[in-house]
């Protein structure tokens, strides 16, 4: 469904991503593990097509179509969306209206706003009329971001650390939502640095210094991550200083 071929991104003389080759199949949950600063969010932005994240080289294909140069909204209309790690706040926009925005280009798997909120563990009666602004806690805002992706019912959901800022007791709820996506045919590219959350995936990869270091089943990748990446300082090394990863 999604294929990245030899993707690299250089920003201000720094090689942020290089030689990324990655595939995500329909309804697959694919996790990307990596410590802070390894390029996980950048990879998400490149796939979504955010301004300033056009790949320097390489090709992005989605359902057989080259989307490398397509703008964000065109990618979204083809079924790709992104849940931000730190989602934007919107003064004056209610949760209900925000979720309806996602439904403008909804697929058949799209859920109603109240259903979306229930799925992410928020009471629709309490939240639908609230504003998506600074009055929401970080955790509430992240859940609403996930609900907004559910409202859209995309073919590919890129979830950038949906578990960060969420209390430990609610992590299982996030994992359940990720499984819901997969059950309804949505592929998930799950970006996280929590091995427990990454374990929900069908396949996992570790990202290191802007490239995919290893791909495999989630358990073996989690082991590798624990043993090799947690203490690793090989992150975003500038071009001129780049050294081989040991």
């Amino acid at each position, binding site marked *: 469904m999604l294929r990245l071929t030899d993707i690299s991104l250089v920003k201000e003389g720094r090689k942020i991503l290089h030689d990324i080759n990655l595939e995500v199949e329909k309804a697959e949950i694919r996790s990307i593990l990596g410590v802070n600063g390894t390029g996980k969010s950048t990879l998400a932005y490149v796939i*979504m097509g*955010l*301004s300033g994240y056009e790949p320097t080289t390489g090709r992005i294909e989605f359902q057989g179509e080259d989307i490398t140069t397509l*703008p*964000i*909204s065109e*990618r*979204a*209309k083809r079924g*790709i*969306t*992104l849940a*931000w790690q730190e*989602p*934007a*706040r*919107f*003064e*004056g*926009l209610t949760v209900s*209206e925000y979720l309806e*925005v*996602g439904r*403008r*280009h909804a697929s058949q798997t799209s859920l109603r706003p109240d259903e979306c909120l229930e799925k992410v563990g928020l009471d629709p009666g309490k939240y639908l009329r609230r504003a998506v602004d600074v009055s929401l806690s970080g955790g509430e805002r992240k859940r609403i971001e996930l609900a*907004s992706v559910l409202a*859209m019912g995309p073919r590919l959901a890129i979830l950038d650390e949906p578990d960060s800022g969420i209390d430990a007791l609610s992590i299982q709820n996030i994992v359940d939502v990720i499984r819901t996506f997969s059950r309804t045919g949505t592929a998930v590219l799950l970006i996280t640095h929590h091995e427990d959350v990454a374990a929900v995936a069908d396949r996992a990869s570790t990202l290191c210094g802007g490239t995919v270091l290893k791909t495999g089943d989630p358990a073996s990748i989690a082991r590798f991550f624990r043993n090799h990446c947690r203490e690793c300082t090989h992150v975003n090394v500038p071009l001129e200083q780049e050294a081989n990863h040991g």
Partner: protein
Amino acid sequence: MADYSEEFAAIARAYEASGGDAALLFNKRFAGLVVSHHRILYRNSIPGVLIEGQETPTGARARITVSPGTVAANPVHLCFGVLPKEGLQEIVSEFEIGEGAKVNFFAHCSFPNATKVKHIMDARVHVGAHAEMAYSETHYHGEEGGVEVLPVARVVVEDGGIFKNQFKLIQGAAGDVRLDYEVELKKDAVGELDARIYGKKQDRILVKESLFLNGERARGLAKSRIVASDQCISEVVGEAVGNAPDARGHVDCVEIIKGKQARASAVPKLQVIDDRAKLTHEAAIGSVDKKQIETLMARGLSEDEAIDVVVKGMLR
């Protein structure tokens, strides 16, 4: 006797276009005042809310008195408008809100055909001790931009009183807007000023909101949300003066620029006289936040649609 029925119907239509409900405007259970150009077309008092009005060569004088202790179950509806393309309307008003009273005002100002209309609103407001007054003013202008809007308010809020004002001009071309509101807050009084204006084409917007926190523990907020598009120029002056112990004031300004020729500026003026007072301000001026736009685009909206959603939310 002159027949104003057509003007009555036209002003009612303009009132509805600005978001009002004409059925309520002329409902006898609601206190109300309708002034079309220089004529008072309708005036209704209810027990506890006295509306007095007098026509003048340039508009009208109005005195609105809410008796002490009155809790108005329904809002007071005010409608001011000029239907011809040209004209001057000067409304001089006094509001006396008696001690412990509670009242909401819905004011609608309609200038749907204006090419050269000047609307002056000069208000003196006295909110008695522990009284509450909320005043919401919504404007409806035509697309020509030929309106000069000069609202001036001088407000005094006695001990424990609350005054909340919202000025909204987002429909049609704003024209030349010079808003000048000053609120004096006494002990434990609360004042909130909120201006929301959408400037287009050649519009000129000047918003001056001032809070004088003169009483112990007085609290005030001067908030403005302005969108300046095309060649519009906007300037916001948010002022707060802390004159008393534990007074708190905040100036909050957001101006969004749409288009390369629009200009916006913000001037916060904070002055602490009593060293136990605390004043804060925040201002954000620029284009619509990129992350907000891209978030909405990632749900399939075009860039223009995304900007529209952000702007409409902010001005709501």
